[in-house]
């Protein structure tokens, strides 16, 4: 009753503030819980196949079909990783894949940087119309052209060689051209102008100025091309008939169809090894991947 009003007001204000921050903290905690809860739950779906792959690759044949499934094999059978080399041509497949992938990477970097320079840094009549054609080819499905291509390649004796898998990489890819062009257009024009004043040709500007500056974008193209060669299944499937020439993807699929479920443990070991280079590449070049991927969707 005798409490001075001057005293009451701050107190209630204080408790109000206290309540506010409590409620704020409660909602923040709740939303964090929901956020991380959802992420952890969803991750389960993405992680499960990896666990299953590793676990299967270390199992003994009699542990494969047990219910409920065994997660940690006993004993852990590392031998499966050796069997993949002994029972099938695993090493040959890896070597073959490198024979395809490395020249493809070099070709993709060389050809697409040249082409992208022509679209980004040289002003010529009809350029934008031609670039529209480049973009339009992105929706042309490979399934429309593969029959004539196969016939052409068989006529010139390229079937059962690596040439049909490597040659196209040397002749431009719409997606890489687009990506590199975006990057080149972002480089300051003054650089080229200065070099031109000094008497440099376009080829000189391309080689000495643009390429060194474009390393991040080139890394993206090189990475994507390597992965697409490493992962390619359809190309090797239709062009390679000799088993000794199979690439890794085709080779592993062939192990499964040849040896079947009884041998699934060491086939899984081979699968793990086939994935390993990609995983390692990702860990070393995570930023390059993310930036490259992000580039593809934006300004599309």
């Amino acid at each position, binding site marked *: 009753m005798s409490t001075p009003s001057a005293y009451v007001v701050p107190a209630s204000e204080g408790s109000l503030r206290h309540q506010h921050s409590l409620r704020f903290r409660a909602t923040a905690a709740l939303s964090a819980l929901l956020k991380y809860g959802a992420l952890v739950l969803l991750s389960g779906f993405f992680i499960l196949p990896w666990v*299953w792959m590793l676990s299967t690759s270390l199992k003994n044949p009699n542990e494969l079909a047990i219910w409920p499934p065994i997660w940690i094999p006993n004993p852990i059978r590392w031998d499966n990783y050796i069997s993949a080399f002994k029972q099938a041509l695993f090493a040959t497949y890896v070597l073959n894949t490198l024979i395809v992938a490395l020249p493809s990477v070099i070709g993709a970097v060389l050809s697409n940087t040249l082409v992208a*320079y*022509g679209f980004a840094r040289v002003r010529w009549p009809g350029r934008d119309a031609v670039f529209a054609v480049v973009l339009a080819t992105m929706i042309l499905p490979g399934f429309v052209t593969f029959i004539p291509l196969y*016939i052409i390649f068989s006529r010139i004796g390229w079937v059962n060689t690596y040439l049909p898998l490597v040659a196209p990489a040397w002749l*431009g890819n719409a997606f890489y051209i687009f990506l590199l062009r975006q990057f080149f257009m972002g480089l300051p024009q003054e650089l080229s102008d200065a070099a031109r004043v000094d008497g440099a040709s376009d080829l000189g500007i391309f080689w000495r100025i643009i390429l060194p500056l474009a390393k991040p974008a080139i890394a993206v193209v090189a990475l994507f091309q390597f992965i697409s060669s490493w992962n390619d299944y359809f190309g090797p499937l239709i062009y390679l008939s000799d088993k000794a020439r199979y690439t*890794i993807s085709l080779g592993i699929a062939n192990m499964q169809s040849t040896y079947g479920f009884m041998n699934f443990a060491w086939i899984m070991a081979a699968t793990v090894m086939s994935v390993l280079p990609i995983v390692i590449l*990702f860990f070393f070049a995570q930023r390059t991947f993310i930036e490259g991927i992000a580039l593809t*969707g*934006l300004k599309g």
Partner: protein
Amino acid sequence: MTVIQRSRRLSREERHSLRIGLLFISPWVIGFLAFRLIPFIMSFYYSFTFYPVLETPKWIGLDNFVQLFKDPRFLTSLYNTAYYSFFAVPLATFAGILLAMLLNMKVRGMSIWRTIFYLPSITPVVATSLVWLWMFNPRAGVINFVLSLVGIRGPGWLGSPVWAKPALILMSLWGVGGAVVIYLAALQDVPRELVEAAQLDGANVPRQIWHVTLPMISPVILFNVITGLIGAFQFFTEVHVMTGGSGSPADSTMMMSIYLWQTAFRFFKMGYASAQAWVLFVIIVIFTVIMFRVSGKLVYYGGK
């Protein structure tokens, strides 16, 4: 031809730059002619021919196309491809946006989450297919084991004509990470002021998402939906690996691409296969055009 004609009217400088430009893009020009345009035209021609691979093509007019639409196996492949695309593409779009939005909420350990979600999308498809093939095993696979934990007796998955396609759709979601990264980049480009303005106007979170965030990233959604559809229509490797190229059981995973491959490389009917390729191509073009038309009203292209 037009280039030459027009070049007569070009100044000397323009002609010079045209030469330089064409020189730089010549690798693409050669590739375009050799690997795109010429095969494209040849394929069109083959689609009107009877062409067993060892003989020369013989013109038969529209016969291939007439036969196609009476071919129950082709119609089945059309249905299966439509079924797969109808579920896989919207689900991937929804899951991709959802994951990207979760990751956009200032989460800690970003590189770990990104690795978890993105890595599957660059994993070799053959590896993915083999792992999932074993995961879907009805009696020893982990999928039915997880289902049994919540008291569900799992179906036969890839051995069942009813469940084989849903199995493939489920598996396809494992590769959604590439789209997540694209969506995330787009979400990070949405100006904060816009979201804050909506908050000040009293919009709750769902309305902020519906009226601000989604319209702002709509061009990226369109891009992903179109590339997703084109990919889904050509869905091949997983089915080929998991069914040994057969489209089993009972043709329930017989996709257009699988039938096309069989026609060309098992039955060596190149003309008939080319006709299928052209039907596939026309379908893809029609859907791409429809997507652009429909999206004209829905997609918001910022100031630029």
